[in-house]
């Protein structure tokens, strides 16, 4: 345990950076540079934390704990394990990439920069907080910058898209808040770790029942309702079918660099919430409704892939594809929470599944941001057009672009050798023994994904050259520099996933132990 409050410092860097940047109204270039510098500083600190992380232990590290409002059980408590650290790293990597992708955007650069930095602060805070009060603070804090980023720089339909995004998420958040208030009433604690420990001892149900005492309801039903509220909060964020309808509009109306952030990192908040909060605190309830939950995961995977196939707008297609990829995470998480009788070495399978979830979160974050980055570059060259049928045969004109975007697309497809494969492989490896039927149906998702991604490649890059684009410029050296790190990482993580697995494995084993009782 380090005595320097690294995690607080990490969250403060973008927070204070944003305050400074927003004052630089006149000096746009300076504002942009300062924003980028701040985000690179965060990246440096995160890499340092990655380096000093003790991978052999699954415990929380860099912990900080102080009393805040004693009478309500509110503490300022931070800490990261492998999961938290992985998410911090993802945020720290995607943010500078997103900023560089928006480099040409001069319009109110100081506000844009500040909003991105505050969003980053909200994300850092969410992934490190261990007490509901300030976890919720950062969870909500991220919404405001996201709303304005969509609203002020987005596409033609940005107003309704931004509003829908905000209100939808708020509904989920209010439900989550109510559930946690009920929990605090019953247990006196807002602390995630304490609550998880209580859940493991089976105390949550009795305590909730005693405290709330709604005469008509039995204790299990009561707790199921509270669970439902918390579930809704995270389900909207991931998103889980059928709470996903805000996503395609929000992702497609936002400018591509902002979508990189939305899909790359914000979507992981929901999955993180499931892993850190919902599963440890309500494992019994998850088991009670396991089959419906698995069905929701399966539907999320399959239906979103089919919806992506039906899209004509590249960004909407990739938006639905995002939902699909996170559906695999849901599948694995729910399967890992199951009782798993009659399974050979269930801990091993569950560990595989959860390792897959974490890898998938990281890899998808990387790949999806890269894909939206490429679409953004395409939009720049086409003057805003991004329809599936707007292009054609452009590989003849921009072979390097085609090659690199092709790599990203194949990674999204799950081609072995690229990063996207490892996560999905581990997920299926783990889920097949635990919930075979769900895994079997979900493979349809992989098939349909392959179909629409290959269709994308065929329509946009192959075939006869669309004369309109005979002169579009190839990737400039700066753009190449922007794109290459992501591509390289895709290969590296595809061929040597141990880089990440080495750090997260101990944490995953601990998670499985938490869920095993």
């Amino acid at each position, binding site marked *: 345990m380090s005595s320097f409050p690294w995690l607080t410092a990490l969250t403060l860097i973008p927070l204070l950076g944003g305050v400074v940047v927003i004052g630089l109204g006149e000096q746009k270039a300076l504002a942009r540079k300062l924003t980028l510098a701040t985000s690179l500083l965060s990246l440096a600190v995160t890499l340092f934390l990655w380096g000093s992380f003790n991978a052999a232990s699954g415990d929380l590290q860099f912990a900080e704990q102080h009393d805040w*409002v004693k*009478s309500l059980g509110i503490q300022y408590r931070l800490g990261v394990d492998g999961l938290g650290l992985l998410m911090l790293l993802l945020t720290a990597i995607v943010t500078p990439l997103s900023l560089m992708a928006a480099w040409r955007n001069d319009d109110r650069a100081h506000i844009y920069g500040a909003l991105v930095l505050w969003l980053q602060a909200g994300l850092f805070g969410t992934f490190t907080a261990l007490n509901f009060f300030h976890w919720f603070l950062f969870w*909500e*804090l991220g919404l*405001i910058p996201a709303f304005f980023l969509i609203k002020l720089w987005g596409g033609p339909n940005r107003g309704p898209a931004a509003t829908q995004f*905000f*209100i939808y998420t708020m509904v989920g958040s209010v439900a989550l808040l*109510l559930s946690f*208030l*009920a929990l605090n009433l019953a247990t006196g604690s807002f602390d995630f770790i304490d609550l998880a420990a209580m859940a493991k001892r089976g105390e949550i149900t009795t305590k909730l029942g005693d405290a709330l005492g709604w005469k008509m309801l039995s204790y299990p039903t009561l707790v199921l309702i509270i669970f439902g509220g918390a579930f809704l909060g995270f389900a909207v964020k991931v998103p889980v079918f059928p709470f996903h309808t805000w996503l395609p509009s929000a992702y497609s109306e936002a400018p591509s660099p902002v979508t990189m952030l939305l899909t790359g990192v914000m979507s992981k908040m929901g999955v993180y919430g499931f892993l850190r909060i919902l599963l440890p605190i309500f494992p019994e309830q998850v088991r009670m409704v396991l089959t419906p939950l698995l069905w929701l995961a399966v539907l999320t995977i399959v239906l979103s892939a089919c919806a992506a196939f039906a899209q004509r707008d590249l960004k909407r297609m990739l938006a639905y594809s995002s939902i699909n990829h996170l559906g695999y995470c849901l599948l694995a998480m729910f399967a890992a929470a199951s009782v798993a009788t009659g399974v050979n070495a269930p801990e091993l399978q569950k560990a595989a599944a959860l390792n897959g979830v974490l890898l998938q979160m990281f890899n998808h974050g990387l790949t999806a941001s890269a894909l939206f980055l490429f679409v953004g570059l395409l939009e720049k060259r086409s003057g805003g057009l991004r329809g599936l049928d707007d292009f054609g045969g452009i590989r003849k004109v921009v072979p390097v672009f085609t090659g690199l975007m092709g790599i990203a697309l194949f990674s999204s497809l799950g081609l072995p050798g690229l990063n996207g494969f490892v996560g999905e492989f581990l997920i299926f490896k783990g889920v097949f023994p635990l919930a075979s039927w769900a895994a079997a149906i979900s493979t349809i998702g992989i098939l349909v994904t392959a179909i629409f991604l290959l269709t994308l490649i065929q329509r946009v890059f192959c075939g006869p050259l669309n004369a309109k684009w005979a002169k579009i410029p190839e990737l400039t050296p700066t753009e190449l520099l922007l794109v290459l790190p992501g591509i390289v990482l895709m290969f590296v993580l595809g061929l040597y996933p141990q880089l990440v697995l080495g750090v997260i494995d101990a944490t995953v084993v601990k998670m499985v132990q938490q869920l095993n009782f």
Partner: protein
Amino acid sequence: MLAWTIYISFAGVLVLMLLPRDDARAARKVALLTAIAGFAVALIGAMQQGNPGEIATITKCSWIPALGANYHLAADGISLTLVVLTGLAAIAGILFSWNIEKRAKEFFAFYLALIGGVYGVFLSFDLLLLFVFYELTIIPKYFLIARWGSTRKEYGAMKLALYSFVGSHLVLIGLIAVWVVAKGQLGHASLDLMELSKVAFPIGFQKWAFPLVFVGFGILAGLWPFHTWAPTGHVAAPTAGSMLLAGVVMKLGAYGCLRVAMVLFPEGAAMWSTTIATLAVIGIVYGAGVALVQKDFKFVIGYSSVSHMGFVLLGLATLNTVGLSGAVLQMFSHGIIAGLLFAVVGRMVYDRTHTRDFNDLETMGLSKLLPFASATFVIAGVASMGLPGFSGFVAELQVLMGAWKAFPTAAVLAGVGIVVGVAYTLRAVQKAFYADGEETSRTEGTDDHAMEPITVPERVGAVMLIATSLVIGLCPSLLLDWIEPCLRSELFQRLLAKGGAL
């Protein structure tokens, strides 16, 4: 020491009356100095108070012995919280009225008289004294709206005054009844709150006396369905008037509900708590719903006040420590936030655009013309939504926790109210400042230069209020350390025993 808040305010009134007629600048300065002095005294007095759980008597001297009325001023944690709120709101209101030219000295004289009366209510521990100060505030309110207001000012002023009078006379009947019954029980006449709080009034008596007094005060607190004076009155009032009305005066009603009705009649409160909770929740959801469909910017804020006061009343109805604590904290928090919202709508926007209609505002591109106002309104809006980090979140947190224990359905419905709150706030933000019109105000080139920039007093006022909400949102212990010990004092024991302590 704290009594000086009252005396300084009224002294300020006297000084203002002596100033020459048209000297607006001197009037403003005198008013501001008085308000700052009052606030400073409030803070110092609050710090000096050793134990907020105790009721510290400031002055007690005999007034009308035949009635058992004393001039009794005292303060406990709840009084302190509200006195500090009054001080802050008073200063902010004056800063946002810096541009009043027409009969400025009379404006500020009425303003300070209102403040003095409010301080008096929060510090009175004698029922007659409380009532006198309570009534005293109605007259300045009427004139502030009727002379310096805007939309339908005479109607708004009259409606507000009449509703207030009806309310206070309901209270008066209740107080007389209390006096009579207490005299029988105690053997001597008394109007002292401490003494009367120990009297066990008969249940049958409480059954009708409680709703009488509670509704009497509740009218001013915006209890649904008696709230209809509030949107009209707030819209009609000048900016500082709205800030005070929504920010502080509505809290007088809620304070009266707690300090008088609930403390004197604990069994009555328990009997009627479900009804109050129902009305409160209706207020929350209805207020928010109506705010969602308004065409006038200021009406949105007016109805939002009704909705937020619903949280206060819900907290009161829960009859447990965390709910009551949340109610008092919400009184403070909403006082600050409502002040901020009205300041933006009234002073920053309306005084420049001369319109509050969303259809007009949409075409003006205010986010580019008035960036400070836009940013302030966004911050005020998210604070009003209950975003964590601001004071409203902690208050709503406590109220909802209290509601979970006492009225679970109310908690869920209040949650719905929060979501609707998000919706109307977003709508107001978008329509007023960030409207999507592709052609914004560039066509009205001359108007660009007609918008004066946001002045220094406005900026100071805005920053002051935002900072307060942030500080309390991040360090709620500052106020909770006053409120919670106070709820454990003997005054509230009978009441909390009814609700099941938390």
